[in-house]
């Protein structure tokens, strides 16, 4: 880590920050040549929290959500010889979106429903299981999981493993023995609530949120005491200020976000109670500012005509204090979201040195197709640049912070609007990007999907879907449904990209040796050069990859790369759930874009661990 940290500090990046801040109005084309400097806060934090390099203690490796590992044993030069070290079959044929954790000599994985936790002893050969925990969630929870019965990973802190179950329990296990320490029920399956996110532990608080924005669930982020499992605070994403934990400290940057009880008054009467804004993405944390960052999901129902108003505080990002949850600022990516553009995508935190001094930044690739650079201290948008094909909006007004929607693309009840790009899964969905301080580039797995859409009256019946849009997705321009790209956030430009036929639904991983790993839904796991995007190595796995790859140093000193294969999730549900590909609206319209997937891969669930020979 020391080496990589130094490397990072010596890196100069694409644009001066001052010019960036004041020049955004002129657009990225006018940006000056690189003179600014970016510093990873993750890099600085690592020694402070005492994490040994070579471990993977959090789903995103660090609180800044970088998915960057300094390990460099596997290099562009030798990656071609990478081979399977061992595998583990979970016995569950659903979407495996989780990231394994590696703490010391133990690897922890959490499976999709029924949410088993497996611990592997890495000192023993070939992934010998250490213990297994069965959560036994309620079967009926499967019926309210909008987009496959996935789980996105566990969290480790202080000898405990924390994870969520589909039926709304957060469970703490003894990391050594797999014994259940506490088990807190946080939501109601009968109201449509599920939990799929990976928790984040900050200062003894386990942060978890709910899923179910397609079922009229009211979203929240909850902090649990890591020792007892008691609820420390809960911040709702809709409703009165008291519920949202908006108090005196709340200082949003833009005027549109200031006012009393906007979470009530930006909705039709009482609709905030079933208004979505769930929290199921990744949470980031900046210890210096002592702020949590997380996105809120789409407002419900999708049919926007049933919820006139800005629908605060959905499809936006909150900065909160971990201690009491009080909101510090908020910014809404998609006010009055029209297309299920959840705002939950992860935020990568990084610092930039500028001629005017250091700036604390936040990078966020939103579903609405823009890559945002925010000042994470106050929530100001510094730039917002299209990174995918967008027809639904014409840029972000940096004076008001508002997204400029294209009126003709607004969905209406009883009328099909064509060529909505990006489609509902957005230019990028949950699949997390990686950030390398060495190259100062973001590695973004994303989609290239458009859709035709017709609004329909959504009928709220508690515990059943509350959507109100009929959707047919199709590939975007070029015909490829996915893209993997390297993005220079301060230069606001794409450096290279790889067209993938299928949406890139897996996470990304970048290493200190400038290797980038990601998987595709037809089951190929790839390593590419972080500077050029050249394909260096690939392996065919038994099922499509929608998991998050990680890398770690084993007790034997070798560098390993691990990833789940097991196609599923919203994009891949057509395979494990055997959806009927002749219905274009199946899986909320995703099936129309994935008709060929059942022929290209099969359902499965295997953990793959690779290493050099």
């Amino acid at each position, binding site marked *: 880590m020391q080496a990589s940290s130094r490397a990072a500090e010596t890196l100069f990046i694409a644009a001066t920050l001052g010019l960036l801040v004041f020049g955004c109005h002129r657009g990225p084309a006018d940006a000056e040549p690189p003179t600014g400097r970016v510093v990873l806060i993750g890099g600085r934090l690592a020694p402070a929290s005492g994490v040994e390099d070579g471990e993977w203690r959090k789903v995103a490796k660090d609180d800044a959500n970088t998915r960057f590992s300094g390990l460099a044993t596997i290099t562009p030069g030798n990656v071609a010889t990478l081979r399977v070290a061992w595998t583990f079959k979970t016995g569950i044929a659903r979407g495996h979106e989780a990231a394994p954790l590696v703490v010391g000599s133990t690897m922890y994985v959490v499976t999709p429903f029924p949410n088993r936790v497996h611990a592997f002893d890495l000192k023993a050969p070939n992934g010998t299981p250490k213990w297994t925990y069965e959560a036994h969630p309620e079967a009926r929870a499967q019926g309210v999981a909008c987009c496959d019965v996935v789980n996105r990973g566990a969290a480790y802190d202080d000898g405990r493993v924390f994870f969520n179950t589909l039926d709304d329990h957060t469970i703490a296990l003894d990391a050594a023995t797999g014994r259940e320490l506490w088990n807190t029920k946080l939501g109601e399956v009968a109201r449509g609530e599920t939990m799929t996110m990976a928790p984040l532990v900050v200062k003894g608080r386990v942060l978890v949120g709910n899923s179910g924005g397609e079922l009229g669930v009211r979203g929240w982020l909850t902090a649990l005491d890591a020792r007892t499992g008691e609820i420390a605070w809960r911040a709702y994403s809709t409703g009165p200020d008291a519920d949202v934990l908006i108090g005196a400290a709340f200082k949003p940057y833009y005027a549109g976000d200031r006012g009393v009880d906007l979470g009530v008054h930006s909705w039709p009467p009482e609709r905030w109670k079933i208004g979505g804004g769930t929290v199921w993405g990744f949470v980031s944390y900046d210890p210096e500012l002592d702020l949590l960052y997380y996105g809120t999901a789409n407002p419900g129902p999708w049919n926007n005509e049933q919820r006139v108003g800005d629908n605060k505080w959905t499809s936006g990002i909150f900065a909160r204090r971990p201690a009491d949850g009080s909101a510090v600022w908020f910014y809404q990516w998609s006010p009055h979201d029209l297309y299920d553009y959840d705002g939950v995508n992860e935020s990568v935190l990084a610092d930039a040195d500028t001629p005017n001094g250091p700036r604390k930044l936040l990078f966020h690739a939103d579903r609405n197709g823009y890559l945002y650079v925010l000042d994470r201290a106050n929530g100001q948008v510094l730039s917002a640049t299209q990174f995918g094909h967008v027809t639904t909006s014409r840029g972000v007004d940096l004076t008001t912070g508002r997204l400029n929607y294209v009126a003709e693309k607004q969905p209406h009840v*009883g*009328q*099909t609007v064509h060529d909505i790009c990006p489609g509902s899964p957005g230019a990028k969905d949950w699949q997390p990007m990686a950030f390398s301080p060495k190259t100062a580039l973001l590695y973004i797995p994303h989609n290239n999907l458009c859709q035709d859409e*017709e609004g329909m009256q959504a009928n709220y019946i508690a515990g059943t879907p509350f959507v109100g849009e009929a959707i047919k997705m199709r590939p975007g321009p070029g015909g490829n449904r996915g893209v993997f790209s390297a993005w220079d956030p301060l230069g606001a430009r794409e450096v290279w990209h790889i067209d993938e036929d299928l949406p890139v639904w897996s996470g990304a991983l970048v290493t200190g040796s400038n290797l980038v790993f990601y998987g595709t839904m037809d089951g190929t796991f790839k390593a590419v050069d972080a500077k050029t995007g050249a394909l260096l190595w690939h392996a065919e796995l038994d099922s499509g990859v929608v998991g998050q790859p990680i890398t770690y140093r084993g007790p034997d000193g070798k560098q390993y790369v691990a990833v789940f294969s097991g196609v599923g999730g919203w994009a891949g549900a057509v395979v494990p759930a055997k959806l009927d590909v002749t219905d274009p609206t199946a899986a909320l319209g995703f099936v129309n874009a994935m008709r060929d997937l059942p022929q290209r891969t099969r359902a499965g669930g295997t953990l793959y661990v690779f290493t050099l020979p």
Partner: protein
Amino acid sequence: MTSTVATESTPDSRSEDARLERELTDTWRLCRGFAGWFCETNHTVIARRMLVTAFVFFALGGVEALLMRLELARPDNHFIGPDRYDQLFTVHGSTMMFLFAVPVMQAMGIYLVPLMVGARTVAFPRLNAYAYYTYLIGGVFLYVSLFTDTGPDTGWFSYVPLSGPQFSPGKRVDVWSQVVTFTELSALSTAANLIVTTLKLRAPGMALNRMPLFVWAELVTSFMVIFAMPAVMLATMCLALDRLVGTHFFNSAVGGDPLLWQHLFWFFGHPEVYIIFLPALGMVSSIVVTFSRRPVVGYLPMVLSLVATAFLGFGLWVHHMFATGLAELGQGFFTAASIMIAIPSGVQIFCWIATLWSGRLVLATPLWFVFGFVAIFVVGGLSGVMVASVPIDLQVHDTFFVVAHLHYVLIGGAVFPLLGGIHYWFPKLTGRMLDERLGKAGFVLTFTGFNLTFFPMHLLGLHGMPRRIYTYRAATGFGPLNLLATVGAFVLLAGLLVVLTNVVRALLSGRDAGPDPWQSDTLEWSVASPPAPYVYEHLPCVAGRYPLWEGIRDCVVEGMDPRQRQVLVTAALDAAPDHVYVLPGPSIWPLLSAVATGVTFITMIFTPWAVPLGLALGTVCLVGWFWPRPPHEPLLAEQP
């Protein structure tokens, strides 16, 4: 020129005439026996069948109307209920429009036009038979479906999306759309037939400006049919495709438009009114002239009015759609067009009054019906001017005011003249005279009943009663006027029953009519009543508009071969003889083709395999139909 035109007949030709008559009778002999029933193509036979069929449908439509009137007689009535009521008014409207009014007017044309223009028959006798059978099958199918609970229930203009696949499940609207498509096929065939008959088979000398006004009316109507019917056939086919195949012509969700249906439908629907009403004007002209005992005042304005009506009739369909909120400027244009169409109708009424004014009136029953027609039709016309005005239309559109208006126009403008025409031509059709006293009693009752039924509807509409409601609350106060209308409907029924009694009595024991009981002016009265199958022993030729009054009965065409079904083809404008054409004889193929058409259209409702099946059947039928005739029946007769 292949025939000779003689200006006078040979005086000593009694035995020659007898031979001629024998040969003609032999050549034009009607088919006999059970099979002959299905082979017959003689136009008088087919027209009589068509008339009877149309009046049967009129009676059925009337029964439906009476049931509806019973349902509406009291507030909160549950005599019929919504489902049945919707089927009743839909089938009533469709029957009256598609199965009665158009066919009956065409039947009168088919019967009378060849007689009036001095032809032996229509230009395409087999097509004529085919048209009749198609119409019959369509009508029977509609009623079969009504009796099997599959009666269409979306109104006679079946607005989408109510009549679309989602809101009208089952086969009800499919039945309607297919019935409309193929009864209009029948109407189109007949129209083509009438146009060619009128333009090419007129007696030598009957230039266009000497044609009887009734023939003019049928000619203009037939042209309107040719331009209007394809629009509705297109619309109903699109509807059938939407419903059966899953196309999206009218699905606004994916870019179709429900207003497209309204445009297509009313582009047909408004001219339809004139299609029904122009032949009736022709009948009125015939009756007025005959019973005024003088030529009509203003022949040229009358003809021009007919033609003008036909043109204007296509320019005002949008006044059925004012409430859809179209652009104001467009509305102004269509208001102007709708108001201006009153002018040609007005001109004709003025001409008739002028004719009566200076005539020597014979107040026979047909003329009474004409008087009734004028009184009712003027009311209907004036309320028509009201609905042409956008603001007024927005109030009265789709209310009972419009129901009253359209019945004043259609019953007043078409049924009264038709009844007058039936009374007038009954002797020609049957050889019997109707009873004058019963006829006049029938008129008084129908006239009174009609006004009792429909006049209150104007008030109901103005007071807020929408159309097509199966019941209403007592508090609305619609009760008394509705009861009055129901009573009126039964008086109207009584009147029509008197007319029917008169007809039956006359058929059983009516006075013998003779060829020309009314001392009329037109050629049909120069032949026997009812006419022989060959109609004219010698084809006549004419030198004026009123041949029988001008005393030129002796001008005939000579040189036609009586052993062939020959007709004389003349020039379209001046009717100069051109050549002789030999018509085909009786045939089973028109019936079989109609059955094939019917089977195809009906099966199409249930399976797409009907299309290949229909193609196969259609091919077989056409081959049979056009199988070359034996050599002794040459297509073009060579004359020495």
